[in-house]
């Protein structure tokens, strides 16, 4: 999984029905110091995150598996909210 920051929201009425009821966010991948990595991605939210939240997300085929009962057509899925990040003081810069 990777870290990301929720930075925006998307609305789409016409969408695949497997995405119905799921929130679509713009998510900026970030490093451990909250610096942006690459450009914003469209992400499916499965944990009730809100704009501004630090989250972790899965990409690729694994992004289709957040639910027990069904698979969704997503390649970027937010699967957790970060409460706190503890970083070792002697980590490499």
């Amino acid at each position, binding site marked *: 999984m990777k870290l990301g920051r929720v930075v925006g929201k998307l609305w789409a009425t016409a*969408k*695949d029905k497997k995405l119905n009821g799921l929130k679509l966010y713009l998510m900026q991948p970030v490093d451990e110091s909250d610096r942006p990595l690459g450009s914003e991605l*469209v*992400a499916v939210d499965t944990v009730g995150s809100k704009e501004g939240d630090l989250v972790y997300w899965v990409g690729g*085929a694994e992004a*289709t598996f957040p639910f027990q009962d069904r698979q969704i*057509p*997503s*390649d970027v899925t937010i699967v957790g909210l970060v409460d706190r990040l503890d970083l070792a003081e002697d980590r490499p810069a």
Partner: protein
Amino acid sequence: MELARVEGTVVATAKAGRLQGRKLLLVNLTGPDTKPTNNYLVAVDSVGAGEGEIVIVVRGSSARQTDDLTNVPTDSSIVAIVDTIELRGGTVYRKDQAKEGGAR
């Protein structure tokens, strides 16, 4: 997923059997500002998207997870047509205000 602008239709008579009857669109990937990056993809449409619309494209094996694309040989599928994009508190795109055939 990524944002993209639909810029054309791909017509192909000779194609893999499981692609028969599928609408193929030429899309130009964009950022949240909907400005084209000139990275083009051929994507299978599963939502009835049309030229000029901003859409959401799913890539990789996830692109086969829509109801009607199981076992279809695609790695790029359009799964949604975007109405509104809000970035850092401001609305950066509204479909009903976008110019015909172009991003705002």
